[in-house]
């Protein structure tokens, strides 16, 4: 990492560093005051990561840093050197969607789609550690992301369905009518 005035950057400094995002190393130059969220969206064009408050109060901006869900709005980008950052753009493999993307799409877990990237990243991290979570564990893991559209229940079902796919117990199932 370097800043325009060496180790002790001036208030106007920009920072140059290498960031590892979705498996790629990217050299970037950005305003030192920027958060990871701002650098992702404004300097890297990764607009899949959303924002709803920029104060850590909604979870829309959740991304994975070293496989853990964190809020990109509260993480200064300069703090991310050497970290592995994953965003929703890195969730699918080529055109093949991640199982949690498939089930969110099929089961109505995305309505307006705005909290969806944060939900997906959080859910994928949960399933990576625990492909067979209980409903209570899903509730807890997702309790840091607000959704105003769905009432969460279809999201829980989508995470459970994705777990079944990841465990090899099923392929994407057609949704059932009602409950």
């Amino acid at each position, binding site marked *: 990492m370097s800043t325009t005035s060496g180790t*002790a950057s001036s208030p106007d400094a920009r920072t140059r560093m290498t960031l590892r995002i979705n498996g790629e190393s990217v050299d970037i130059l950005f305003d030192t*005051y920027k958060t990871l969220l701002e650098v992702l969206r404004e300097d890297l064009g990764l607009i899949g990561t959303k924002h709803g408050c920029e104060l850590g109060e909604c979870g829309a901006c959740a991304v994975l840093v070293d496989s853990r869900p964190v809020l990109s709005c509260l993480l200064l980008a300069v703090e991310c050197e050497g970290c592995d950052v994953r965003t929703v753009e890195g969730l699918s493999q080529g055109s093949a969607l991640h199982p949690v993307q498939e089930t969110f799409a099929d089961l109505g877990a995305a309505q307006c789609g705005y909290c969806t990237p944060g939900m997906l990243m959080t859910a994928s991290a949960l399933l990576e550690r625990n492909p067979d979570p209980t409903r209570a564990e899903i509730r807890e*893991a997702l*309790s840091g992301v607000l959704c105003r559209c769905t009432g969460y229940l279809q999201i829980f079902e989508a995470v459970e369905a994705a777990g079944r796919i990841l465990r090899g117990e099923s392929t994407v199932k057609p949704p059932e009518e009602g409950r």
Partner: protein
Amino acid sequence: MMRCPRFRYLSPKTLHEACASLQDSGPATMLLAGGTDLVPNMKRRQQTPECVVSLRNVASLREFSSDRDRLRVGAMTTLAGITARPEVRERLGALFKAAAQVATPHLRNMGTLGGNLCLDTRCNYYDQGYEWRKAIDFCMKKDGEICWVAPGSPRCWAVSSTDTAPALVALGAEVELASREGARTLPVHGLYRDDGIAYLTLKPGEILSRILIPVPAAGEKSTYWKLRRRGSFDFPVLSVAAWVLRNSRGTVESARLVLGSVASLPRVADAASRLVGGILADDEIEAVAQEAAGLAKPLDNTDFSLGWRKKAARHLISGALRELRGDDPRILGPLARRAAELVPVA
């Protein structure tokens, strides 16, 4: 989007370097740990450091070790890192429940134990954007003259809102403070002052580096109850950390009760001493709960109404003590039920 104001950024590699950076960078320098408190405060212009000293790369602050007597936890250990430790989950109930209920899982992956202990005091007149604060002509804590919670007051009444401090005080923990001059150790309670503005006793240039927690003996048990509107996100509006040491016959040999979010610092309830010699019988618990609840003199600067918070204090204290006695938390009301169902996310 809300932006951080411009600042200088330093990222020392050792504790010694960090202490030097802190001392040499002028008074408008602040430490950055997990960022979950400082960054939003900067965006709202509540805290406007000219220089930010990041502790992220100071490896020694992430230690987690123990010997027979004490658990040594580096101040940069994340809250999620704390709750993931079996020795915390199994034996330090108060710390586990406190850390596991801070904010949200995401914020616990970022926020650190040291950062939570140093959490800025909170107030509904202070935790607002710059424009909002301008609309009330600011307040005593930042840029203004008056404490709007108590307009005649010469002091600031912002509330200590850390979850882990009451728990660590109840557990008899200590903190280690490093500076260029060396290190000193304080009981956790000694870290705080009853003042919403100068709420920490840290001296200029000092860094909270370690938390030292006594390894619990047989017969020790502790818990933490937190009152808040929602099961996630929210800061405590009132919290109770309780710790007892009982002998094999169930008689209480020692007890500590600490109330959080009722003042600018965690309040130790002396009433806990009345539990000593007893067996945590209903009447003993009720008497102590009634007396300790008197410490809760909330002001109208957090969520919920004043009168109700006072009433809730008694319920929280007696509930926590009943839980220590061995009552099934699921029958102790909705708050306990929630806490009993806590699922730590690794």
